[in-house]
């Protein structure tokens, strides 16, 4: 019974695991205060390179995944150089242009990428289990970053660049590091997608991807590492629960993004965590006052 259910929902579970990875790749640059939407392009690079290596050059899939991850990291590092001169909305525009460039290259360099038709017959070597472990490892790394030096620097820079610099943190250095980590996650999960779904085509890493990755983070929350995962879970389950919505996925995401940004700017999960925190602080205050210590 349970296993039947699992098989029925398996594609959906795979989708959720993959997209949680995409969401975390997006999350980590935002956390360091970089307004990049480059992840769609970086994911495409990981997916295409690894698929091409295995399909056309006969490279072992494991090595292809490593190559895809490395390519995502490297391209992100290269991108971070010109991006360091830009801020806020200009970073968003520049990275959007990057996504468009990758998309066009994938469409027009047919010989390598299969053009608009994409690549087919990629061996499905990545199972739900692999995806699950991949997500766990990614979550661990992001948790590790949050608990140590990198996370403190990212948080400081996101909140106030000038102050972070006045405390000795090089904004350029840390934002490049965040971008590289994001590129690695994007490249890796791009390769996972290639080896999980048999086919890839350019449009899958276009505007819809970009909106989805952003929506997961904005909807779920940008502070806690669980925000993006909760965001991906809810937003992937939603159209499945209400079938007619599935066709208008991007429209629904767009609407959700507007509503959440207007009414729950921290995202659902972070708002919930904050609510719990407030309650605890209020309880502590009451206890302190009851003890007569209202200094």
């Amino acid at each position, binding site marked *: 019974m349970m296993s039947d259910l699992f098989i029925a929902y398996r594609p959906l579970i795979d989708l959720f695991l993959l997209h949680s990875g995409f969401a975390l790749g997006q999350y980590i640059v935002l956390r360091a205060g970089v307004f990049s939407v480059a992840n769609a392009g970086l994911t495409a690079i990981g997916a295409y390179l690894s698929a091409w290596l295995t399909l056309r050059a006969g490279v072992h899939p494991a090595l292809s995944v490593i190559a895809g991850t490395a390519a995502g990291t490297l391209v992100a590092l290269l991108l971070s150089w010109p991006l360091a001169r830009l801020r806020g909305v200009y970073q968003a525009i520049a990275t959007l242009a990057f996504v468009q460039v990758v998309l066009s290259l994938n469409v027009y360099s047919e010989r390598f990428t299969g053009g608009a038709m994409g690549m087919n017959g990629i061996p499905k070597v990545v199972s739900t289990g692999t995806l699950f472990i991949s997500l766990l490892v990614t979550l661990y790394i992001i948790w590790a*970053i949050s*608990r140590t*030096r*990198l996370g*403190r620097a990212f948080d400081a820079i996101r909140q106030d660049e000038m*102050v*972070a610099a*006045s405390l000795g943190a090089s904004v350029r250095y840390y934002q490049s590091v965040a971008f590289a980590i994001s590129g690695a996650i994007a490249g890796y999960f791009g390769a996972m997608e290639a080896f999980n779904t048999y086919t890839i085509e350019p449009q899958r890493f276009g505007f819809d991807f970009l909106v989805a990755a952003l929506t997961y983070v904005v909807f779920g929350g940008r502070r806690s590492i669980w925000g993006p995962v909760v965001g991906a879970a809810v937003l992937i389950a939603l159209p499945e629960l209400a079938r007619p919505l599935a066709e208008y996925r991007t429209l629904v995401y767009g609407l959700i993004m507007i509503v959440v940004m207007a009414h729950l700017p921290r995202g659902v999960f972070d708002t919930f965590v904050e609510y719990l925190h407030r309650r605890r602080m209020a309880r502590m205050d009451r206890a302190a006052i009851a003890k007569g210590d209202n200094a």
Partner: protein
Amino acid sequence: MSTLVLDRVSKRFGGVIAADNVSMQVPSGRITGLIGPNGAGKTTIVNLITGMMELTAGAIKLDDRDLSTTSPHEVSRAGLARTFQNIRLFKEAPVIDNVMGGFHRHEKCSLVSSLFALPSARAETRQIREKAGALLEKFGMTRYASYPAGSLAYGHQRRVEMMRALASGPSVLLLDEPVAGMNDVEAGELGGIFRELANGGMAVLLIEHNMRFVTKLCEHVYVLDGGRLIAEGPPKQVTSDPAVIAAYLGA
């Protein structure tokens, strides 16, 4: 024992001259005052020292090291720390996290150990948390450790900023109106802490409008008006200088 030296420093914003040939010394072991009417250029001096603004002319040195064109994070690494006149805290983050941020300059764990939370990185986080806790205690702020910094009263926010600056273990501390908005008792408490820091060998630059406070704490005071130094010397002498009185009355 270090001395911060400003040598004929100038800063021009379009037509406005915010600093005009300013030369100053901020030696260790002393609280040096910097006063002047609104718009005199005091904050500009701090921004120039910390590399947040580029000099139009002149030089800034910490002992033998030239800081004239050094970027803000490198100035911090050279041992300078500052507070901001318009308090700049990480408002949503807990007080303790704000203070922990100040230790950045001393963090040594590698990128890889941070990425995987290896024992060395976790130990570092633990140590920094303990040190931040000790600072909170020194400033009597322990009970606010987990409050969002932005939710505190004004005076408490100033204290958090000061703790964050001190966390970096600076040899030069630049305080831009650190007791603005505090009552005399609170200001007195902080004054005691500044005194202690200077006695411990720190070079402290204190920008302040409250003349009683400045007179009590500073041995040497510089007076700015319209970007130019119009007087310097012991506080008693400076406050009775006709040029200074005229500048304040004229403002």
